[in-house]
């Protein structure tokens, strides 16, 4: 029954470096190398490919956050880390669906990842808060905020994009938007 998934796997250190540099190529290689393993895990344990996709992407986010927070130590293989995270996430989902989890079929060794997942859950809450706050904020505030703070556009560009007569007007607008966003974010 057990079948090892074989593919050319990039070195772990390369991937960590790639993540720190926001390399798209690294993400792609990571995805291609490790997604099959997770797909196998989920399919063999009463899930479908969409479940596998969700679980795997979540685990990649966990990995990214961990690497970017700077406290990633390569004390286990990246593969084992991802597998363990996915396994935990999938078990949790199965539990939520109150499906039996008597014996999950394993395909790889596992390590304890509870701490990472706790951190991830906290981040996840923040993410959802921010997401809902931004949605409530509405246009054009949302785009202004995103452009300025996330995409790091200059006030001048924003000014032109939204047709403000001068940068000061834009700055005022951005300030008002930010205040509203903060209010929305912290009130919930």
């Amino acid at each position: 029954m057990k079948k090892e998934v074989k593919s050319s796997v990039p070195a772990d250190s390369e991937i960590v470096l790639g993540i720190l540099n926001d390399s798209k190529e690294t993400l792609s290689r990571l995805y291609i190398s490790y997604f099959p393993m997770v797909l196998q895990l989920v399919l063999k344990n009463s899930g479908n490919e969409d479940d596998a996709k969700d679980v795997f992407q979540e685990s990649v986010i966990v990995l990214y956050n961990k690497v970017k927070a700077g406290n990633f130590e390569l004390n286990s293989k990246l593969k084992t880390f991802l597998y363990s995270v996915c396994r935990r996430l999938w078990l949790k989902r199965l539990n939520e669906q109150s499906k039996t989890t008597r014996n999950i079929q394993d395909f790889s060794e596992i390590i304890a990842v509870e701490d990472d997942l706790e951190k991830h859950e906290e981040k996840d809450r923040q993410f959802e808060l921010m997401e809902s706050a931004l949605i409530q904020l509405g246009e054009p505030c949302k785009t202004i905020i995103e452009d300025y703070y996330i995409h790091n556009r200059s006030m001048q560009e924003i000014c032109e994009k939204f047709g403000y007569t001068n940068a000061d007007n834009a700055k005022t607008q951005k300030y008002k938007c930010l205040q509203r966003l903060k209010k929305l974010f912290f009130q919930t």
Partner: protein
Amino acid sequence: MKSDLELTNLIDAYLKGELTGSVLADFEQLRKSDPSFDMKVVEHRNFILNLSDYGSRVKLSSDMNAIHESLDIQAIKDEVAPEAPKLRRLWKKYRVNTAIAASVAFIAVSATLLSTGYFSKSISTNVNLLRREINSIKRSQNALIKNINDKPSKGPADPGEFGGTGFALSSNGYVVTNFHVVKGADSVYVQNSEGEAFKVKLIYIDPAYDLAVLQITDPSFEKLASLPYTFKKAASDVGEDVFTIGFPRDEQVLGKGYVSAKNGYAGDTVAYQVSIPVNPGNSGGPLLDNRGNVIGIINGKQALLDGAAFAIKSSFILKSIEAIPQDSLDEKLVVNKRNTLAGLSRKDQFKKLEPYIYMVKVY
């Protein structure tokens, strides 16, 4: 004092590293001197970090989705988890349920059968073979000693384990009975109506017709007078009155009836169906018609059904006799051809037949 708006813009500029020269120095100075301002900067920075985390995660997700779109998921799926055939998938999914259901069914069936006594009955046939299990007296030490002390001159002291009936084939000591009566016997004795027992040996068996031919080997045996009955070669008709004599107990019992069908149990052409009262112990008894011809030999009756006994047709007895290699016999086996029973009343017939009918005891 600057307005909140101006301050925020300043902090934004600071965080983006747009401040230079004296403005930066002023800003740093202000942070150091004014803790509430410093707090404001930290708060703002944290929020912005939060915002950018959100941004990078959105980007990461969309990047991953793009990669996911480009993958051939079905191919990967086939590689990592080859689809089992539907039947096997269903089996895997439901095998526990199936096992439980099967066990429950098995237990229920067994319990039902057990409680209705199904297992205690023999199910191989609905025909009860009519050999009698003699209620054997416990063979106590005392009995044994008694036997040693005054050993009877003839026959064994202990009653046999099984009993049936047999009748003489010829005057020189050949007796026919059912195979099932003598089956598995250690030794076989026949006992006549006088109570004399003779040791016999098995000289021929025919399990297919359920027949066995015995020869009395006991030295105390004296030749009989010539047989009063003959063996009928032709088949008897349905409705013919018949009678039998047997040993359902330790005494000869006469039973009277008629041939009720040409064939036996389940269309068995070897036997007749006879409507006649028979009991265990009647097996091997002769079935005679009114004129005293042996037309068959009683061998069984149908279970759970009244008045359906079966008798092996006499033609098969004759066939069996023919099948015995004559060379191997000590004495010639000649079948009687003269009938002296015809025209007699039933009680006279019984009297004449009495000495030729034996109880067969099997040990």
